[in-house]
């Protein structure tokens, strides 16, 4: 089985792939550029270089979205790397203007935040109209390695598992600085996107899997917070084989670690590792249809 289909099978997308083709769905991804011969409706370029990705990151994200949603309108906002927060806010604003069903944000930092930094605040603003899928980051197995903008309370923060559905070691962990658990869900990484010769590792490549499913559900329900909640509630449990020993950078003194563990019990919450579990596209789609039937006017 090609490795990408293995990832799709893990999130049960193959069962509903014929229904969730992305017809009438609009997705924006903010990244380092778009793939060379992949469908893109429009590019908004915030750099001085060409729209085409030269770093390999944006084109991989684009390839995943295009493979999952062949009928969708895909837009891209190209940003520089490293990316100052004011440019990221501009990019989010450009994405917001397009009124997409979902925004894919495979952009991370490991700077701890309580969600009151400007980018997290702006992500919450965009998430009032679209589902914003944000990569949790690759700072694991350290606890509290999830940073802005993944800490935004309204973001759908996506962690990573390997192709055996075990938590990926380097997927960033919660809690946030103010004690909320993150990520919200996990999706596979370590697969080879279609027409690529490399296996890609990182929460950046788990995020478009969740963004694609979320965009399709968003088209049906038109409420980002409900869509995010459906994805959480239908997620399947993940094997947390690794010990949940909290590791904290900077807390080199055993005394401090001991103090934190006794004074901050929320650090033991298993949702800080894999959120509510593995994305389940089939169950989420079924539940969405049930909800639509239940609330549709007679």
């Amino acid at each position, binding site marked *: 089985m090609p490795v990408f289909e293995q990832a799709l099978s893990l999130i049960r997308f193959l069962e509903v792939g014929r229904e969730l083709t992305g017809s009438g769905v609009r997705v924006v991804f903010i*990244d*380092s550029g778009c793939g060379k011969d992949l469908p893109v409706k429009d590019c908004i370029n915030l750099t001085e270089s060409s729209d085409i990705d030269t*770093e*390999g*990151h*944006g084109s*991989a994200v684009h390839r995943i979205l295009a493979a999952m949603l062949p009928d969708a309108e895909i837009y891209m906002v190209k*940003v520089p*790397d*490293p*990316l*100052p*927060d*004011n440019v*990221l*806010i501009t990019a989010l604003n450009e994405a917001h203007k397009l009124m997409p069903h979902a925004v894919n944000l*495979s*952009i*991370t*930092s*490991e*700077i*701890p*935040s*309580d969600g*009151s*930094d*400007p*980018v997290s*605040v*702006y992500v919450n603003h965009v998430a009032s109209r679209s589902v914003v899928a944000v*990569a949790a*980051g*690759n*700072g694991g197995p350290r606890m509290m390695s999830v940073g*802005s*903008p993944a800490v935004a309370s309204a973001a759908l923060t996506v962690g990573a598992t390997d192709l055996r559905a075990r938590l990926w070691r*380097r997927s960033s962990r919660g809690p946030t*600085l*103010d004690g909320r658990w993150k990520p919200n869900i996990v999706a596979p990484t370590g697969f*080879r996107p279609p027409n690529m*010769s*490399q*296996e*890609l*590792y*990182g929460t*950046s*490549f788990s995020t478009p899997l969740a963004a694609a499913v979320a965009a399709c559900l968003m088209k049906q329900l038109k409420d980002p917070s409900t869509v995010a909640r459906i994805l959480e509630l239908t997620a399947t449990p993940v094997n947390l084989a690794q010990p949940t020993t909290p590791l*904290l*950078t*900077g*807390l080199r003194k055993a005394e*401090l670690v001991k*103090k*934190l563990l006794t*004074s*901050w019990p929320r650090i033991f919450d298993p949702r800080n590792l894999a959120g509510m579990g593995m994305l389940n596209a089939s169950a989420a789609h079924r539940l969405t249809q049930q909800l639509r039937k239940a609330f549709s006017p007679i």
Partner: protein
Amino acid sequence: MCIFRIQRGRKYFCGKRYPLNCSPSICPFGEVLWQSLVNRDYKPGGYWSMPSMQRADSPEEAWRLLSSGEAHYVVKEIVFRVGGGCRSLSRL
């Protein structure tokens, strides 16, 4: 790294608890987390006055915005990475 710990002259103040100096006893995240947050620091290129989301170029300007009541709290600039820490593996 703390996004709220702002250096002004030789002193540090808490961008979230103006006009108090940064110290474990006033840290909004508690004494124990304070230690891990201040162990490493970074010098930002700018500051954000919140919730109006205005830019301030210096800690003095950030202080002025707080003292005049224009800002409720001040945050340091963050620089993000596009897919920071991702890797790819080629298979023959």
